[in-house]
C-alpha cells in the first residue's frame, strides 16, 4: 500500500517561494515522474515528500495519514539518490541491510532479505565488496537494493541515472521500470530528461518554477499539451513553435507542429516553402532544419533516407489535425 497525496503544499526558503502551491495525488502502485528543467522545484518537492525538508504549508498524506510533522524515518519511504549516497565504509551487504538493522530486525532475517534483494539485482557476487570497488552501474544497483529491501510504501528516485553513461542509462531505465512493475510498489521519480519521463512513467507531472504545469499520461502530454511550456518540453526533437502571421491565420498567438507531423515535398507543393540549412542523416531518420520565411527555422523529422541536402528548397505541410494552437497566455485552444 502506498498512495501519496499532496494538498496545498508550499515551500519557501527565506523570502523566495520555491513551491507556491501544489496539489497532487499519486495512486498506489503507480510510477509517477516529476519532470522539468533544473531549478523547477522537482527535487525540492521530492525532498518534502521524503521528509528531508520541512513543508512551509499544506499537507502530505501517505495512505491517508498526514505526515508533515514526522521525520523521514517514520514515513516508510525509501530513496535512491543522484550520487547513490552509498556508505563508503560499509560492504554492499551492510549498505543494503543498514535500514533493516536500524529497524531492529533480527540478524538472520536481515541476511535473508539482503540475499534476496541482491539476487534480484544480480549483486550476489559483490556482497562483500566496498562501494569504491564497484562500477557505476553496480553502485546504482546497490542504491536500488537499499531501497527495495525495506519494502517501503513508495520509492523516491532523485535523478538516479544522471551519473551513468548513455548506454547504461537505457539499460538501468528498463531495469527500474521492470522492477517497479514486478514489485508493484509506488514510485516517484525525478528527472530533467523527458525521454526518461516518457518511457518510464504511468503518469508524468511537468513542473515549472515550482508550479505543476500539467499532469497526465505520457501520450496525453504528447498529444494534448495544456500549454506552451509542456508543448516545448515534451517530445524530441522539440515541437516547432511558430508565431506571427502564420499563427494569426489559424486564429492563435502561437501554433505548434511536431517535427514528425510535417510532410516534406520536393515538387513545389506544400503549405510552406523553405530552404534546408542543415540536414542530419541518422539512417533511420533524417532531421531537416528548414528556414521558412515568417516562421524561422522549422525542424522536420522524416523517416528513412530521402537524399536531401542543405540548400535544397522543399515544401512543408503540417498535418492539420495535429497542429496545436495557443492563446496569448500560452494556453492551448481546443
Amino acid at each position, binding site marked *: 500500500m502506498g498512495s501519496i497525496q499532496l494538498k496545498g503544499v508550499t515551500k519557501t526558503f527565506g523570502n523566495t517561494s520555491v513551491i507556491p502551491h501544489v496539489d497532487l495525488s499519486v495512486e498506489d502502485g503507480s510510477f509517477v515522474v516529476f519532470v522539468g528543467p533544473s531549478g523547477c522545484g522537482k527535487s525540492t518537492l521530492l525532498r518534502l515528500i521524503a521528509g*528531508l525538508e*520541512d513543508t512551509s504549508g499544506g499537507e502530505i498524506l501517505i495512505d491517508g495519514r498526514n505526515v508533515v510533522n514526522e521525520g523521514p524515518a517514520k514515513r516508510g519511504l525509501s530513496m535512491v539518490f543522484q550520487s547513490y549516497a552509498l556508505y563508503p565504509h560499509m560492504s554492499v551487504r551492510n549498505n543494503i541491510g543498514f535500514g533493516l538493522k536500524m529497524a531492529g530486525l533480527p540478524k538472520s532475517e536481515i541476511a535473508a532479505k539482503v540475499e534476496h534483494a541482491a539476487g534480484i539485482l544480480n549483486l550476489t557476487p559483490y556482497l562483500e565488496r566496498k562501494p569504491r570497488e564497484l562500477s557505476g552501474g553496480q553502485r546504482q544497483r546497490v542504491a536500488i537494493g537499499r531501497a527495495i529491501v525495506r519494502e517501503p510504501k513508495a520509492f523516491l528516485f532523485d535523478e538516479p541515472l544522471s551519473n551513468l553513461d548513455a548506454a547504461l542509462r537505457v539499460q538501468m531505465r528498463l531495469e527500474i521500470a521492470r522492477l517497479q512493475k514486478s514489485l508493484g510498489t509506488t514510485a516517484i521519480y525525478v528527472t530533467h530528461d523527458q525521454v526518461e519521463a516518457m518511457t518510464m512513467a504511468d503518469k508524468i507531472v511537468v513542473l515549472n518554477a515550482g508550479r505543476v504545469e500539467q499532469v497526465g499520461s505520457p501520450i496525453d502530454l504528447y498529444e494534448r499539451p495544456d500549454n506552451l511550456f509542456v508543448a516545448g518540453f515534451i517530445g524530441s526533437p522539440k515541437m516547432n513553435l511558430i508565431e506571427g502571421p502564420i499563427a494569426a491565420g489559424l486564429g492563435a498567438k502561437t501554433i505548434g507542429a511536431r517535427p514528425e507531423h510535417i510532410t516534406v515535398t520536393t515538387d513545389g507543393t506544400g503549405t510552406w516553402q523553405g530552404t534546408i540549412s542543415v540536414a542530419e542523416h541518422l539512417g533511420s531518420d533524417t532531421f531537416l532544419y528548414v528556414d521558412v520565411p515568417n516562421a524561422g527555422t522549422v525542424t522536420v523529422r522524416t523517416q528513412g533516407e530521402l537524399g536531401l541536402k542543405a540548400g535544397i528548397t522543399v515544401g512543408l505541410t503540417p498535418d492539420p489535425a495535429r497542429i496545436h494552437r495557443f492563446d496569448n497566455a500560452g494556453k492551448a485552444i481546443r
Partner: protein
Amino acid sequence: MATRQSTFLGRILAAPSILVLFLWMIVPLGMTIWFSLLRYNLLDPGNESFIGALNYEYFLTDPAFFTALGNTLLLVGSVLLITIVGGILVALLMDQPIFGQGVVRLFIIAPFFVMPTVSALVWKNLLMHPVSGLFAWIATSLGFQPVDWFSNAPLFSVILIVAWQWLPFAALILLTALQSLDGEQKEAAQMDGVGPFSFFFYIVLPHLARAITVVILIETIFLLSVFAEIFVTTGGGPGLATTNIAFLVYAQALLQYDVGGASAGGIVAVVLANIVAAFMVRLIGKNLEA
C-alpha cells in the same frame, strides 16, 4: 536547507563551544581592560586606585615601548621576508623531479616540529656560541674572528632562529599551492615558448599570491607573540635590544609586578594583532563561501 529539528539540534550542539570561547575571550579581556585603568602593583597590594588612561600614557610614552615596537616590527618583517623568499625557493626546488623527494621533504619540515625552547637553546649553545659553537669554528677555520652573536647582533640572532622555525611552514604551504598549478598550464606555456623566468613571474607567482597572503597573515599572528625564543636566549637583552612587545608586557607584569602597566601593554598588543586579524578573517571568510 534542513528541517527545523536539525537546525535546532545544530544550535544546541554548537552552543557549549561558543559559550566557553566567549567566556575565555571576554572575561580575561575585560579584566585586562579594567586593570589597565588602575594603579595596581602586586608589590603594593590593597592600594589599587582608578587612574584612567594614565597607564596607557606611561606605557605609550615609555621609550622602552618604542624600542619594543621597533623590535617587534623588525622581527616580524625580517622573518616574513626570509621565510617567504626562502620558502618560495625551497618550494620551487622541491617541485622539481628529484631522487628521494620524500626524505628531503621530511628534512625540510622538521624544524617546524621542534619546540621553541629547544630550537632556541640548540642554536644559542651548539651553533652560535662564540667559543665552542659550530659557527665560531667555521669562522676560525676560514681565518675570521668568531662572532659573539648574542652580544653583537642579538636581534639578528633571534630573527635567524625564528626564521629557521618558520621557513618549513612557508615552504610547505607554498609547495602545496605550487603543486596545485595546473599541469596543462605548464604545457601550454611550453607550447607558447615561455621562458622559465617569465613563466615564474607571469604564471607561478600570481598563482601563489593567495598562499603567500595566507602565510603572511598566519605567520604575522604568531610572530607578533614570539616569546619563548627571547625568554631562553637573551631575556630581552642586552638592554632592550631583543625586547618585543610580548616580552615587554611579560617583564612588566611578572618581573616588575606592575599589573596596571602590563595590562595597558597587553591591550596595545591586542589592538596591533586585531589589525592583522581583520585582514585574515576577511581572507579566510572569502574562502568559506566556496
